[in-house]
């Protein structure tokens, strides 16, 4: 094995060169290298560079509930339009139940609902099933396939909207990815305020304009007498604690074409908006019919203001006043512009590290790597003399290869990943120790130096591979299991084990082979 074949020397030189070239960008200031050289530095995890990790869950239960509520209103209007009397309309579990009063019209109602409810599916048929039940009942439900598709679609649309919102905030290089069926990971590096990020991402921002039902008195509200097509909403406008509004929205946020921070006539912060053609027409019509009556501007189920209509608004634009600050008006405009989330988002995990703390971690990590390697070098050279120097050289190349490989592939280096590197150094030395100890065994067994050294390499190899496969297995499992930082630990361990076997076996082999040839050595320095 010690015979120095040309390919071995080439391989060693190439790998050392590879490590050096790809590690270099990390050691010199940015821009110092010529344009043709690799420029990529280590990609630091959020725990090292500072930033926020958010795991969001799309609330598909709320989505399903909302779809059922809308479908219920559809059933009501369809039946009312055909003047069919009905009772007991409501949602029970995942289905909608209604009783048709006239037994002779049940079939007609079934036909009507069957043909008009829901949307057509690509596979044919509609996305709702309508069926009769005993005692003049009709049951309406969503096809399960359609419900799942709606959830999946909600997740995809949420990701798009989150991306738009984060871009509007000016966050640098955000990463937004889907995880599992209904989760979204947002990684935003930098010093951005995590609370602001959360409030911007997590707000559903569902805006509707609804007519206030002036026929319902305060006593009715107190007694809980809310008409079935009305809704009691809490209010933030500072005038009334609640408003009773019509369930049917006049216009919705989807009809907005633009929104921006603005001011009202008293120079208080407000949000200016304009509608598209449909919205303009609808809003114009309704305001013309309801002059003198109040309407409510509702955001995520809370009334933000309830102005009185003084004249028909036909221009398709206006301002929303409310209890805004400059900042909150600006934020609301941003949210309205990017559109509403299809379903509420819950933050189920958050990890935020300040940039300063991250920098401290990098400093501490670097110091411990330097001290750890210095201790290893000192110990291995003290233990094995010249051969220890060879092992130390292999270790340096190993370090270069790990950092080079991680810079090249842009694998994320995390704080535990730094611990992984330190551990890798120790494991790398182990391969050399195994080889050297094997050489000593062989000398003891009576072999001459050269052949003992040779046997040391070949015989230790199976042990080295057996021993390192176990660490690889542990690293792979860790990678599967872990989140962010732990994945980083697993990754550096994995890369490190592979490069360390390579450098410890091959580089020391070439160095020892060269040493034998150059000095015509007759004895090993480790006996």
């Amino acid at each position, binding site marked *: 094995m010690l015979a120095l074949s040309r390919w071995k020397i080439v391989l060693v030189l190439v790998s050392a060169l590879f490590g050096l070239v790809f590690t270099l960008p990390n050691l010199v200031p940015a821009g110092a290298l010529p344009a043709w050289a690799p420029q990529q530095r280590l990609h630091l995890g959020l725990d090292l560079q500072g930033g926020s990790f958010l795991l969001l869950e799309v609330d598909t239960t709320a989505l399903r509930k909302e779809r059922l509520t809308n479908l219920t209103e559809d059933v009501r209007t369809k039946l009312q339009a055909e003047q069919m009397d009905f009772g007991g309309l409501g949602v029970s579990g995942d289905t909608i139940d209604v009783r048709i009063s006239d037994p002779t019209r049940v079939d007609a109602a079934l036909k009507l609902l069957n043909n008009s409810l829901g949307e057509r599916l690509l596979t044919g048929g509609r996305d709702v099933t309508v069926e009769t039940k005993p005692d003049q009942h009709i049951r309406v439900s969503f096809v399960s396939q359609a419900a799942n598709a709606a959830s999946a679609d909600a997740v995809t649309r949420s990701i798009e909207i989150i991306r738009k919102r984060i871009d509007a905030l000016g966050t640098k290089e955000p990463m937004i990815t889907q995880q599992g069926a209904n989760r979204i990971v947002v990684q935003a590096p930098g010093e951005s305020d995590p609370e602001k990020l959360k409030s911007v991402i997590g707000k559903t921002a569902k805006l509707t304009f609804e007519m206030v039902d002036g026929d319902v008195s305060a006593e009715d509200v107190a007694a809980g007498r809310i008409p079935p097509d009305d809704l009691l909403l809490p209010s933030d406008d500072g005038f009334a604690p609640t408003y009773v509004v019509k369930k049917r929205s006049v216009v919705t946020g989807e009809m907005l074409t633009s929104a921006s921070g603005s001011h009202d006539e008293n120079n208080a912060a407000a949000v200016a908006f304009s509608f598209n053609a449909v919205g303009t027409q609808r809003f114009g019509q309704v305001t013309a019919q309801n002059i003198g009556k109040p309407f409510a501007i509702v955001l995520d189920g809370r009334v933000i203001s309830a102005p009185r209509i003084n004249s028909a608004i036909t221009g398709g634009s206006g301002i929303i006043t409310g209890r805004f600050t400059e900042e909150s008006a600006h934020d609301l405009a941003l949210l309205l512009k990017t559109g509403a989330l299809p379903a509420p988002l819950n*933050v189920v995990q958050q990890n935020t590290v300040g940039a300063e703390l991250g920098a401290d971690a990098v400093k501490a990590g670097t110091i411990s790597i330097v001290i750890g390697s210095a201790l*290893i070098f000192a110990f291995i050279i003290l233990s094995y003399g010249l051969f220890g120097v060879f092992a130390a050289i292999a270790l340096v190349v190993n370090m270069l290869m790990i950092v080079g490989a991680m810079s090249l592939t842009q694998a994320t280096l995390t704080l535990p990943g730094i611990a992984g590197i330190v551990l890798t150094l*120790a494991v790398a030395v182990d391969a050399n120790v195994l080889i050297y100890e094997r050489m000593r065994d062989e000398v003891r067994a009576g072999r001459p130096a050269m052949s003992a050294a040779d046997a040391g390499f070949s015989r230790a190899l199976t042990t080295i591979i057996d021993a390192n496969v176990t660490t690889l297995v542990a690293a792979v499992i860790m990678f599967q299991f872990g989140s962010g930082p732990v994945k980083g630990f697993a990754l550096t361990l994995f890369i490190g084990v592979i490069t360390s076997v390579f450098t410890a076996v091959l580089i020391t082999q070439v160095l020892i082979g060269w040493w034998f040839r150059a000095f015509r050595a007759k004895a090993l320095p480790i006996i």
Partner: protein
Amino acid sequence: MWPLIKLIPQKTHFGFVAFARLAATLSIVAVLATVVGFFYPGLNLGIEFKGGTVLELNTGTKPVDLGKVREVLNGLKLGDVQVQTFGKPNDALVRFQTPAGANSGQVVTQVKGAVTQALGQVTFSRTDVVGPEVSDELKIKGVGALLAAIGLMLLYIWFRFELQFGLGAVVALFHDVTLSFGLILLLRLEFSLNLVAALLTIIGYSMNDTVVVFDRLRENRRKYKRMPLRELIDLSVNETLSRTVITGLTALLALSGLAVFGGESLRPLSIVLLFGIVIGTYSSIYVASPIILLWGVKADDEPAKPIAPQPARP
């Protein structure tokens, strides 16, 4: 004198197996103590596994008024509030549980607002929030990962050696993982994802060490067919002793650098790893090998001594 390896005798003849009984007793006592420790006082679970929030805050030049922070948090009716200084007097660590049914994301925003109002100038250098949905998953995944790692090691050793070797190795792994938990319990370390990573690494390292001894054992068994298993084990452990010592010391040196200079957040990880290196080395000699000895006796269905000394041939 230099290099130092010359100081290590070429051949050692320590009777490791002779102490196996004593070591087994010690190990069993330590394992039992750990099992008791699991129930009382129990693991100090980090928020990754029980859900909740940890905030690290800094008040600039003046020290943190811990009492005031506590007062504010108690007013918010959160579960299990802990407030303590962290490293320096102007750094504090705040932990709390999100009340059932509340949105953990919103609660954090609320808490930060309240603390800022009470203390004035505050920067939050770290915010970690884990919702109950996530912590339950992580718990299952963590236990799954540890078991999967041990199972795969068993398969690998079975495949590369023999079943009784695999069993010896796996008992050693359980021993190492259990005692590492023992250390975590003893030092009241917070059991976090990082420590799961540490345990997985210990499994890898302990296995690595065991494999080296087993490798030599297998080789010696072919070489000295008539040597009793007991002596074979002693021989193999002695032959690999210098490697065990040097590799172990290297790992300890490297990791102690990490433990001292790596900062607060890596300290628990490095302490557990340091302990794991020591215990992994011990278990290769005193757990994995003796198990083979026990198993070997039973498998061959022989009396007291595994292989009777052969009478000299005439």
